[in-house]
């Protein structure tokens, strides 16, 4: 399984795309991830458009599933990611090079907030690792601009406890 190669192909195919979720977390040093890739799209694509680009789209247990040619599942977000608007995800995204091709990934701050909101065991695990590895690199003004309620204080506490 080479997720980087798959990510580059997705970026080439879909153009206006930001990688979010576990694939973004790996870029910040998180060690483990599942085989799926989560992406944010600036402009929604129809099933026909995905099919034309070589992706398989079908219904599974009542949910739309998109898979790459090599079978990797893609989860597509077109409105928001855990409440963070897609335009904010795009505006704050970072560019990294994979296989000599630039791809855009969700910024650390949005990733942490999204994971805090999801709150599943794997998200809490990732938050712990991200705070340990990258806590000192967090841009707090960016957190403030996307956070709700006490989330900034909460995240500061996690960083203080873990970094």
């Amino acid at each position, binding site marked *: *399984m080479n997720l980087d190669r798959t990510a580059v192909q997705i970026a080439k195919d879909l153009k206006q795309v930001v990688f979010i979720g576990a694939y973004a977390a790996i870029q910040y040093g998180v*060690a*483990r*991830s*599942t*085989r*799926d890739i989560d992406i944010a799209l600036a402009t929604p694509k129809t099933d026909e458009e995905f099919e034309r680009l070589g992706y398989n789209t079908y219904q*599974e*247990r009542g*949910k739309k*599933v998109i898979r790459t040619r090599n*079978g990797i*599942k893609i989860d597509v977000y077109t409105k928001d990611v855990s409440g963070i608007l897609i335009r904010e995800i795009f505006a704050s995204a970072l560019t990294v090079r994979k296989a000599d091709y630039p791809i855009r990934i969700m910024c650390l701050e949005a990733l942490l907030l999204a994971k805090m909101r999801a*709150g*599943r*065991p*794997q998200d*809490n*695990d*990732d*938050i*712990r690792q991200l*705070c340990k590895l990258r806590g000192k690199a967090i841009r707090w003004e960016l957190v403030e601009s996307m956070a709700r309620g006490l989330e900034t204080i909460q995240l500061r*506490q*996690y960083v*203080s*406890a*873990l*970094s």
Partner: protein
Amino acid sequence: MRVEPSLAVVQNLRDSPAYRVSELYQLAGSRATAYRLLERLLELGLAERLNRGYFSLRSSAFQPYRLWPHLVPSLQSFKEARHFGRAYDESDVNYAKKTLHGFLSLDYRAYELTQLQTPHQYYLYVDRVEEAAQLLKTNGFSEGKAGRVSITPKSGNFENGIQRVYLDCLAAGGRSTLDAIAIEIRYRDQLAITGEFPVDLVTKVEEDLPA
């Protein structure tokens, strides 16, 4: 190791990356009881002390209390595990695969069984820990916290290997919870003891498991 029912009071906390000790005061009834409670959770391996009066809880602390005694051997093995690294990458794991012998568990065994998540830590139960540690050290490995090769003494029941790997993943919690769910989906008939998981987590694993 004894597991007192009073410890289950921590299940009233919500699963979170870190907690203040003061969050336990009200649950425990007093500050002194809160600190005693935390000490017991640390001894059991369910909690870890962090900076500045914070602590973390393994997500296995939120499994039903009746399961806790089954998790204790795994939790104790995590506490006794020794970690080694040389290049701190996959080559360390490849070396360990070739030279060390024992019972493989957690990430790499879960990956062999389910192919759900990329593995990271090579976690091996060995008969003679000191001997294995010396072998690694004489071959350039250093012992510390960050190494990807972990060795630990065998304790608890290994008769049903799949069950043991499952309980190790369940006890480790966090991302390993997904491994436990995947093992349960694939090897349900080989498990006598199983955990409880939110439906959305099980659905996610079902969707992500390779066909």
